[in-house]
């Protein structure tokens, strides 16, 4: 999860801040204006990072809101006097935010490539609105004759025409924007956004309304871009349709990636770098100066001249090199040199303390369950009871319908016929997140945890899903209950305390599987449905997780599909054998082992001997 910036980064940011604060004292008017532009671009690209880096939505039309913000200043500014910034700024933010809400409600329905395309389309629609029509001067653009002023009554508090005052205002705006987003990302709301970025399907299965979260993120980002747009328009007092175009959107994406998507501070660095590179490449004299360091002055002058004329080609090459060499951008480069703690060896799981009371877990009853896919009957009239506080294994040859069976139980598929009762309540046909809410948690064959989050954060997210009221920004409400749930889940799944704050991607395979189980427990599941939890594990890990499953039966009901016969025979209280969708046998491991029909199912004619 997005951590607070590392000390190195904080130092760099503070140095930049100090430089900025001092700039008006020694910098030229041009430098001040250039720096203001960079700061405003910084706000714009940070807002885009909320979408791209935090929520994982690559928008190719973010400049739409930037441009709308800029044009809004034109609309609200009287022809020959200053607009009141107290009105103009909120107006720009609200306008951009409102449009983002409307557009977002449509575009957020799409993902991936399609999302890129639809956002591009709406950006272009916005562009053509201002380009093709005369709403605001059309292709010529429009002028804001007098810069806005913060005024209360007749008191002028801050005049944007004053370069220095404007510069400091932008600086404060950028710092506040950064701090705001940094805070937002670390709230429960922000956690969900990051979860959606890395594993939207899992978030949805946990019970979060991912559409609402994504839409919220889109609107916030749009509003913030609108804010940046208002400020931008105040720099030169000129707005043009190109501000909304896809070139602007593309360059913004460029800066986000150059700086390091997802870090929030990275894109600001990216904006600084890009602006400097662009400025340098455009200026023949600066290039000449640089080249003179390594070649004769005539060659340098010639090369500098050419490059300055074709600066965007040089820019293109530079960007390609930058993206290929440093895919994680500047931030990735910096962070490489402040790596994470090395992996400690996983420890033996401690069984739950004996003094713990046996909590009554849930029982699951399946009656005549059938699931057909057209002509193919994958699950055929299966009836079985899974009593609570026991470990139940489901085994059977390939194609027996085991995974389909679990899919129906967890709500991923609807039953064609039959009933599923969890503690007496019918759950057949319910959606997965509703089934999860009732207490039935399901894990998957392939590990499905949120890899960039630590084990603790994964569990926190799962615990949060129990009360998924959207847009929770306070860590206080219900925080205590959730913390308890997280601690309990980590302990019950055997994840050692010193491993809990390590990123899931750095955990061993077995620990990741344990984390899967921990997430289910944290989300309140009392009946655990596990699909091949031991797959891909060596003997030591298998032993550990098998012991864990038995320990879990004290508080939960565990139902698992497995192929590892040794492990499941040792761990299970009962075994259910499915063959070609039908229930062949159900009983204790001993009974199953001695069952001739089961033997035949596995060994074919051989078993008949």
């Amino acid at each position, binding site marked *: 999860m997005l951590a607070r910036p590392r000390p190195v980064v904080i130092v760099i940011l503070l140095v930049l801040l100090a430089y900025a604060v001092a700039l008006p004292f020694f910098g030229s008017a041009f430098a001040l204006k250039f720096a203001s532009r960079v700061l405003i671009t910084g706000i714009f690209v940070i807002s885009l990072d909320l979408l791209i880096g935090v929520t994982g939505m690559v928008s190719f039309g973010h400049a739409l809101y930037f441009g709308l913000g800029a044009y809004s200043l034109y609309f609200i500014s009287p022809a020959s006097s200053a607009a009141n910034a107290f009105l103009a700024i909120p107006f720009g933010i609200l306008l951009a935010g409102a449009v983002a809400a409307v557009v977002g409600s449509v575009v957020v329905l799409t993902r991936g490539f399609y999302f890129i395309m639809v956002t591009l389309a709406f950006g272009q629609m916005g562009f053509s609105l201002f380009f093709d029509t005369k709403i605001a001067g059309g292709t010529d653009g429009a002028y804001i004759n007098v810069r806005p002023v913060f005024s209360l009554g007749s008191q002028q508090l801050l005049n944007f025409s004053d370069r220095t005052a404007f510069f400091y205002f932008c600086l404060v705006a950028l710092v506040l924007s950064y701090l705001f987003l940094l805070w937002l990302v670390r709230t429960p709301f922000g956690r969900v956004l990051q979860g959606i970025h890395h594993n939207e399907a899992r978030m949805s299965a946990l019970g979060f309304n991912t559409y609402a979260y994504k839409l919220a993120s889109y609107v916030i980002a749009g509003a913030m871009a609108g804010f940046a747009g208002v400020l931008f328009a105040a720099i030169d007092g000129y707005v043009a349709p190109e501000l909304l175009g896809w070139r602007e959107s593309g360059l913004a994406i460029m800066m986000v990636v150059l700086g390091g998507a997802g870090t929030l501070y990275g894109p600001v660095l990216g904006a600084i770098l890009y602006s400097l590179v662009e400025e340098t490449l455009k200026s023949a004299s600066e290039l000449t100066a640089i080249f003179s360091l390594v070649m004769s002055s005539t060659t340098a002058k010639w090369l500098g001249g050419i490059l300055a004329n074709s600066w965007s080609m040089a820019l293109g090459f530079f960007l390609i090199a930058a993206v290929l060499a440093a895919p994680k951008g500047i931030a990735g480069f910096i962070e490489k040199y402040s790596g994470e703690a090395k992996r400690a060896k996983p420890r033996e799981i401690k069984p739950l303390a004996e003094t713990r009371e046996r909590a009554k877990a849930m029982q699951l009853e399946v009656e005549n369950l059938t699931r057909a896919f057209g002509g193919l009957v994958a699950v055929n009239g299966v009836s079985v009871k899974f009593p609570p506080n026991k470990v139940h294994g489901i*085994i059977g*040859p*390939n*194609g027996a319908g085991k995974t389909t069976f679990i899919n129906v139980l967890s709500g991923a598929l609807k039953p064609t016929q039959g009933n599923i009762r969890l503690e007496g309540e019918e759950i057949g046909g319910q959606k997965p997140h509703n089934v999860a809410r009732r207490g039935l948690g399901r894990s998957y064959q*392939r*590990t499905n945890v949120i890899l960039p989050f630590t084990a603790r954060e994964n569990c926190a997210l799962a615990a949060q899903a129990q009360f998924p009221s959207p847009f929770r920004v306070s860590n206080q409400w219900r925080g205590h209950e959730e913390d308890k749930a997280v601690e309990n889940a980590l302990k019950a799944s055997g994840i050692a305390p010193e491993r809990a704050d390590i990123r899931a991607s750095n955990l*061993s*395979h077995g620990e*990741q599987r344990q984390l899967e189980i921990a997430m289910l427990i944290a989300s309140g599941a009392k009946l655990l449905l596990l699909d*091949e939890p031991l*797959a*891909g*594990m*060596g*003997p030591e890990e*298998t032993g550990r997780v098998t012991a864990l499953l038995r320990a879990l039966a004290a508080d939960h009901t565990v139902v698992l599909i497995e*192929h*590892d*016969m040794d492990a499941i*025979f040792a761990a299970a209280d009962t075994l259910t*054998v499915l063959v070609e969708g039908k229930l062949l046998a159900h009983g204790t491991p001993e009974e*199953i*082992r001695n069952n001739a029909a*089961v*033997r035949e199912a*596995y*060994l*074919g*004619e*051989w*078993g008949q001997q």
Partner: protein
Amino acid sequence: MTPAVLAENINTHYGRSHILRGVSFRVAPGETVSLLGRNGMGKTTLLRTLAGLVRPSSGSIQLNGSDVTSSRASVRSRAGLAIVPEGRGIFPNLTVAENLTFASRANAKGERPWPLERVYSLFPRLSERKHHWGNELSGGEQQMLSIGRALMTSPSIILLDEATEGLAPKLRDEIWSTVKQIAESGIAAIIVDKNLNDLLALADRNTIMAKGEIVFDGTSAALRSDEALIHRHLGV
């Protein structure tokens, strides 16, 4: 004699999941080797690793004496290896004839032991349906198509992954008799199948995989005489 397939100490991972654990596998030219074991034990992963569809994390693979460890699947196919995958992998948007002739070529010696006519005589049903689209075929017919397509590349090594899975008994027998013909025609074969009896009767050698490792490698007679082993790794 140079082995047709020589895999040494193969380790394959899917992310963190360690599926193949130090597997070594050997097939002599023309030999038929069975690959037994319950599901999830790594059989399909092993076949895919040999075919080049999955990169191992370590180990080496040689086909007919040449090292193909870092070679793409297309190179291995041209070196004489054909795979009939689980799920058949036929092209649904090509006709039967187009599927069959898709990669038709002669072997290293310039011979074509399995020309189109021979494949059609092996699978008359395909001949009847030669202009149907791949996705219009039944499961059994798709299986035939997948086998025929592989044969037309004139392979010296063939990997058959559950070629009879999910088929009605009669169809199963039909396909199995083709498998027997293929195995007896001099192609080195690695066969994964559920029917233990038939497989033991056909195979020159048998291997069993459990939890990503080879736990048995021996003749059918040796395996038949070890009931405990059979039950332990293949039964319940």
